[in-house]
């Protein structure tokens, strides 16, 4: 008799290692875990050693190698959900089910875990539910532990989507995705295909568009780099692995206007000379995944994707991939490893992705928001785009505002808007008295009340030692214990460090241990040395920024560390770099 496992695995006959994550996802969803028997079958089908498969399962948080409950409930306890009672909720949940965190009830019904930021900070606290046989769904805001157990909560409240203008967010409704009929023709793609790829690159370079994922690299130059790399095959990847705590603007784009993204991808692929595209969406964004798949199908059926688009000879196939619970896969080379069916370890650079990326081929990786900006540039011209914002921060920008403001949500702004105006005029003002703003996400820096007049631009933020980063703006009023916030950030990095390089693998653990305890003499100096070592010696961007908020707090919120200044070490060399 053919078992369910047989029928899952047989669907992958003839495929290779790059099909590993999709296949493991199917097994995980069907059984709630991936057994030794399943690994054996997968190993034979994809011709991957069993030990390697086991190592992959062990790397991704959403995969399990031991049985789990029918329903896995994962509650976010990162800073914003933490401020909204996530700890109490987790306690209630465990008490009601009579288990400890990470355990499964004896009747096999429930498993409870703590999740990293789920990108639902505007409706904290949030949870991700995995229902065996059905898959994932996100719920927020959670009203009670009971609602998670009863399953009476089933959806996410729609996000506030506002701002000074609507370009990226044009036509986006908070509660449903734009269909192709709503979005209309891919007119910008049609126009691009009438131009040479070089002309498209030139337009994007002239527009001044720089990457919205956090690294702020000029988009046109990236495309140019890949196009110039000699190769018969090139790839275009949309990085939709948005996982930076406090960041949810890509989720709103993915859920709200998937066609704008697909059109942007098609234009980028044409310009860079890529015939194969991937969208890598984090496993914690089930709604985005479903809506993207539906939109890809529509676009394909309408002839905007596939072979010989509009009879121009340009062909593009896009494969939708989902992550399996690993923040590190937002790092572009770790993302390649995940698509290739491996543990998500970042690679040594160089070689850079535009030279040797996915499967060793030239690859462009762009963030969701970056790609969503492209159709407007092509349709209305570089000049039009450039005229918005400032010279070094061209085009409108999305920010995710969460925490103590009256209306948390995603805001489209013109760079140059002072932070004060964003908070007071756009977001309805700060709730209570402002203590600090964490700018740029967990790997960002703190801005204090006296810095609220800083114009929100890449250059102004850089000038004061801060960063736009992912565009996350987390607002904390004076009721918040900032040491608790730092501890939650440290927990995030400890949980998400891939473990490849020593400074981050060891440093994220020690950093968390120190912040969790009653300070010992010398702890501030320890945190400082760990932080500088991770920043300067880690292999990838995660490790290099894993202490960013903590080092920033040492300068701006010294009271948080005051309990440890009687040991004579003081922060005398904190300002040495």
């Amino acid at each position, binding site marked *: 008799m053919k078992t369910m496992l047989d029928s899952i695995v047989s669907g992958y006959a003839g495929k290779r290692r790059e099909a590993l994550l999709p296949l493991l996802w199917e097994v995980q969803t069907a059984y709630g875990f991936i057994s*030794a028997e399943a*690994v054996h079958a997968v190993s034979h089908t994809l011709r991957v*050693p*069993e*030990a*390697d*498969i*086991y*190592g992959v399962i*062990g*790397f991704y948080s959403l995969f399990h*190698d031991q049985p789990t409950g029918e329903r896995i409930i994962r509650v976010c306890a990162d800073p914003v959900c933490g401020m909204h009672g996530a700890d109490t909720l987790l306690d209630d949940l465990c008490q009601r089910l009579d288990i400890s965190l990470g355990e499964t009830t004896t009747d096999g019904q429930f498993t409870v875990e703590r999740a990293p930021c789920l990108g639902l900070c505007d409706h904290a606290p949030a949870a991700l539910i995995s229902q065996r046989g059905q898959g994932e769904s996100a719920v927020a805001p959670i009203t009670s532990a009971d609602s998670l157990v009863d399953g009476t909560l089933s959806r996410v409240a729609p996000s506030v989507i506002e701002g000074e203008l609507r370009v990226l967010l044009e036509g986006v409704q908070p509660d449903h995705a734009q269909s192709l009929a709503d979005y209309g023709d891919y007119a910008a793609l049609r126009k691009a295909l009438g131009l040479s790829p070089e002309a498209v690159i030139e337009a994007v370079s002239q527009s001044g568009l720089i990457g919205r994922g956090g690294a702020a690299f000029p988009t046109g130059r990236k495309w140019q780099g890949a196009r110039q790399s000699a190769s018969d095959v090139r790839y275009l990847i949309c990085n939709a692995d948005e996982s930076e705590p406090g960041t949810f603007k890509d989720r709103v784009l993915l859920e709200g206007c998937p066609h704008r993204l697909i059109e942007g991808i098609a234009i980028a692929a044409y310009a860079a000379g890529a015939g194969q595209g991937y969208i890598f969406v984090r496993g914690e964004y089930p709604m985005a995944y479903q809506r993207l798949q539906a939109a890809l199908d529509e676009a394909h059926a309408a002839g905007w994707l596939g072979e010989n688009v509009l009879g121009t000879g340009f062909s593009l196939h896009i494969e939708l991939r989902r992550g399996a619970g*690993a923040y590190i896969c937002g790092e572009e080379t770790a993302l390649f490893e995940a698509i290739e069916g491996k*543990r998500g370890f970042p690679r*040594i650079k*160089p070689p850079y992705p535009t030279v040797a990326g996915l499967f060793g081929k030239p690859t462009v990786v762009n963030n969701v928001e970056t790609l969503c900006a492209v159709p407007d540039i092509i349709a209305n011209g570089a000049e039009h785009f450039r005229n918005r914002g400032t010279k070094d921060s061209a085009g409108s920008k999305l920010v995710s505002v969460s925490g103590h403001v009256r209306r948390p949500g995603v805001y489209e702004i013109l760079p140059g808007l002072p932070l004060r105006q964003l908070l007071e005029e756009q977001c309805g003002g700060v709730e209570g008295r402002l203590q600090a703003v964490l700018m740029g996400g967990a790997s960002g820096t703190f801005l204090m009340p006296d810095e609220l007049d800083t114009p929100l631009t890449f250059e102004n933020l850089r000038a004061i030692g801060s960063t736009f980063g992912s565009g996350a703006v987390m607002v904390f009023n004076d009721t918040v214990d900032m040491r608790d916030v730092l501890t939650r950030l440290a927990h995030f990095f*400890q*949980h*998400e*460090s*891939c*473990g*490849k*390089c*020593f*400074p981050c*693998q*060891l*440093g*994220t*653990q*020690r950093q968390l*241990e120190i912040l969790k*305890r009653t300070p*010992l003499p010398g702890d501030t100096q*320890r945190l400082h*040395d*760990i932080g*500088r*070592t991770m*920043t*300067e*010696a*880690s*292999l990838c961007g995660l490790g*290099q920024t894993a202490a960013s908020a903590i080092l920033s707090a040492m300068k701006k919120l010294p009271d948080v560390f005051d309990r440890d200044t009687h040991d004579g070490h003081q922060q005398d060399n904190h300002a040495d*770099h």
Partner: protein
Amino acid sequence: MDTSKTITLTIDGQEVTVPEGTTLLEAARQLGSDVPVICYHEATTSNGLCRICVVDVNGGRVLQPACVAACQAGAAVSTRNGRVERSRRTILEMLNSAVDLSAAPEIGALMTDYQADPQRFPEAAARDHELMDDNPFYVRDYSQCVLCWRCVQVCGSDAQYTFALTLDGRGYDTHVSTAFSIPMTESPCVFCGQCIGVCPTGALKPKIEWGLEKGLSHDEIRQMTRQKRRRKHMDE
């Protein structure tokens, strides 16, 4: 790599000309500069994991791993300055708080050289693992494992293509394992011994060496392994 092209750079104030593609480590060693390494091994793929070999290139924002970073023309490299020392010292101190380094004298010597404080991180959770004695040839004590990856690499595509080993877990909880932690005897392991040869600490040890260190005689050790084999045989 076109080795006919050469480039010139400065390492610790000394000018050196090397073929293009030469790593900073190779160039520094050519000059007699002492760049320390832990995970690096001539016979395995370099992954730049331990970061003990980081050096300062042009005072850049981040330090560069000398084992994998290629020499750049005109670069000014410092193999040991304040930033480099702080990173090396802190990595050593954190490593020492996580791993039993008693059988890694080379790392011990680095601790001394960089004035690393063995007690720098009090109350730190160590990576404790039970000794694994599951085959007649070698024992595994992952409490002594620094995660240099070399055993996994030689078991896989760097040498043996056996793929008995993998890295499991993530972050601080990363560890070397067989699939589902099965005993070596049930894994694809062919007992080639290459993993033991590249282990930089005492994490992997031939059974005979381990037994002698425990004060057992050759006969006693032989008997232990024979009994185990017989038992295994009878189980089947």
